[in-house]
């Protein structure tokens, strides 16, 4: 069975075509700068064939048409006809309280997804555009939606509510939702697979550290808390997002700088984080370069703040779960940032975290245990694979549906 996975952003579409039985990626790539000048399509086939094509991509539908076109082309294609694609799986950022698992996309589901737009005005509309486009182009194909928020729907009310007037939760569903759920779910399950342990009796902390970062506490296989909130701005310090900050400071800034909510939103989401502190870049590689090789003090400070915040969350989540068995690093920084991992784990031996510095140093973008054998907490690096989860969920949904139809 072949499943096409689409991750539609505001001006890009990431795609992967899976042969699900063999777990093989037949082709993958990205359509970038959709609706903008300089748009292009990148395509990599399993056998190394690779091409980058520039041209006008006016909207998501055009982008998906080109993706389908290249997948079936004589020259670069990996399938002969579109009929070979059995289903399409979509990443959907916000599922509100309406979705606690992946779903088959129906008209009713689309309607519910449209209702979620208000809570994720930047992310959900492009996700939906992808769904509409596939509906237009391949009207008979089955589609599934996999939500970033779904994995965290197991959080208890005392963990997900903000201590604001309860009426605001009732009126607008103001609460913590959490994001990166697909990634936290994948790496926690994969780590247990690697360690050959049962997820249902383990306390796990997953650190998804990338340009956007979040951390999750997973007890007995269920997310009980996570750092991102109602929006992806809460929690850890990120590339350009501030993470946790005193709300009182924000209203004070608005008053002093005479700015409105739109500018405040841009300030928190685009001018802050390690970029805002260092003034160097939002890319951790540039910050590390500036800090370690050029002695830039603000870059050093940004790194210290980034690591300190994560350490604080690890401590609090271990307390929330009543202990910790497994600590996982994933995401671009989590998978490659050897110094950052070492710094985060430093002085945590009191809670059973003892990192093997040599093993940690040699681990980049690959699965590995980086803690000492005697460490009470097993520390792992597990590269995330959200697309695989989306493909597998889609496969499961479609298989169940087909079985039902046969009965």
């Amino acid at each position: 069975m072949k499943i096409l996975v689409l991750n539609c952003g505001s001006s890009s579409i990431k795609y992967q075509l899976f042969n699900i039985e063999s777990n093989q990626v037949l082709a993958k790539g990205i359509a970038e700068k959709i609706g903008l000048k300089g748009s292009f399509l990148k395509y990599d086939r399993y056998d190394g064939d690779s091409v980058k094509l520039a041209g006008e991509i006016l909207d998501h539908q055009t982008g998906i048409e080109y993706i389908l076109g290249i997948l079936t082309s004589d020259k670069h294609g990996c399938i002969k006809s579109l009929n070979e694609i059995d289903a399409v799986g979509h990443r959907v950022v916000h599922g509100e309280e309406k979705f606690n698992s992946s779903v088959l996309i129906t008209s009713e589901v689309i309607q519910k997804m449209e209702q979620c737009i208000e809570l994720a005005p930047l992310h959900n509309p492009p996700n939906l555009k992808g769904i509409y486009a596939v509906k237009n182009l391949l009207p008979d194909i089955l589609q599934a939606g996999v939500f970033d928020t779904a994995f965290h729907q197991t959080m208890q009310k005392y963990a997900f509510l903000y201590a604001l007037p309860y009426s605001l939760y009732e009126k607008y569903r103001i609460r913590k939702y959490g994001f990166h759920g697909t990634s936290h779910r994948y790496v926690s399950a994969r780590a247990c697979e690697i360690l050959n342990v049962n997820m249902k009796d383990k306390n796990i902390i997953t650190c998804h550290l990338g340009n956007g970062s979040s951390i999750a506490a997973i007890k007995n296989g269920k997310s009980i808390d996570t750092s991102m909130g109602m929006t992806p701005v809460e929690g850890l310090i990120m590339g350009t997002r501030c993470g946790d900050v005193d709300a009182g400071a924000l209203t004070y800034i608005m008053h002093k700088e005479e700015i409105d909510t739109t500018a405040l939103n841009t300030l928190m989401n685009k001018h802050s984080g390690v970029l805002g502190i260092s003034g160097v870049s939002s890319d951790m590689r540039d910050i590390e370069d500036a800090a370690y090789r050029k002695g830039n003090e603000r870059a050093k400070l940004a790194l210290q703040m980034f690591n300190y915040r994560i350490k604080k969350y690890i401590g609090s989540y271990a307390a929330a779960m009543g202990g910790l068995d497994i600590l996982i690093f994933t995401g671009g920084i989590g998978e490659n940032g050897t110094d950052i991992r070492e710094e985060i784990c430093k002085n945590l031996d009191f809670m059973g975290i003892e990192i093997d510095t040599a093993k940690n140093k040699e681990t980049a973008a690959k699965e590995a245990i980086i803690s000492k054998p005697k460490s009470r907490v097993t520390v792992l690096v597990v590269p995330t694979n959200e697309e695989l989860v989306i493909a597998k969920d889609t496969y499961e949904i479609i298989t169940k549906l087909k079985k039902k139809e046969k009965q």
Partner: protein
Amino acid sequence: MAEKLEDFAISKKLTTKSSMLNKVGIVGCGSMGQDIAILVSGKGIEVIFIEKTDEKVKESMKNIADKLDEMINRWGLTSGEKRAILTRISGSTDFKILKGCGLVIEAIMTKGPVTEIVRAKQDVFKKIESAVSATSVIATNSSAIAISELSTVLDHPERAAGIHFLAPAQTVKVIEVTKSLKTSDEAIKIIEKFAKMIGKTIINVHESPGSLSTRLIITLINEACEIFMEGVGWIEDIDEVLKSGYGLQLGPFELADKIGLDKLLVWMDILYSEFGDRKYKASPVIKRLVRSNHLGRSAGEGFYKYIDGKKEGKLL
């Protein structure tokens, strides 16, 4: 031969598909034209603007860059976004480059008698029509001049309508849209699509000089001048009472300075000549300030004094 993305279209229909509003034209790139250019480009649409001379084109581009820098300083934009916005804006003195624009907005600043203003805008309308396709919409940002009158010079007056942006165009959520007697439903559909793309809500206005906003604001400012001249209250007090008491962001005198007193005088003259009602007749205070070249915030002096655009005390 190098491969093209178009070669991989799964239907031929795709290669000929084009968005009507891939490109928007602006004629007259003064302060409002610049704001519209930033707003439209910020939404990912290419903007072509026309100015009278090469120097003015350069000046407008510089002002746009300065405005974007100010937005960065005020935390509303990142430098990456600034670069993206600038790459989508280009200026010229040649109307021919408007070819391919699905919508062109006239936003020229003209002074003088009403007849001259109308003639200048009509001349621009004709030049736009000669450059664009038969289906392109031609709009004016003016709220004071009737669109029916402006569009009489067009071969296809049904494509003309009024799209009035209120300052600051970036943040004001509404645009006033005016149909002439001849404006077609197709033209309105394109304007509705445009409004959606730039995130604005349309306020439909029946054609009448001054639309809603200009007519109301003129009478408010004129009445404030009357109160001041009668000695009932002082400038700052009048501004303060309206801001604190009625929730206006700016008082009438601050607003007059922001709009520009010369511009305000033109609006008042037009509305007075249209309606003949004394409530639109420009207050002597405004005329006096304009004669003294105290034109408002951009000139550094109006009802108040300004340093670097910030109010630093009263003038009168």
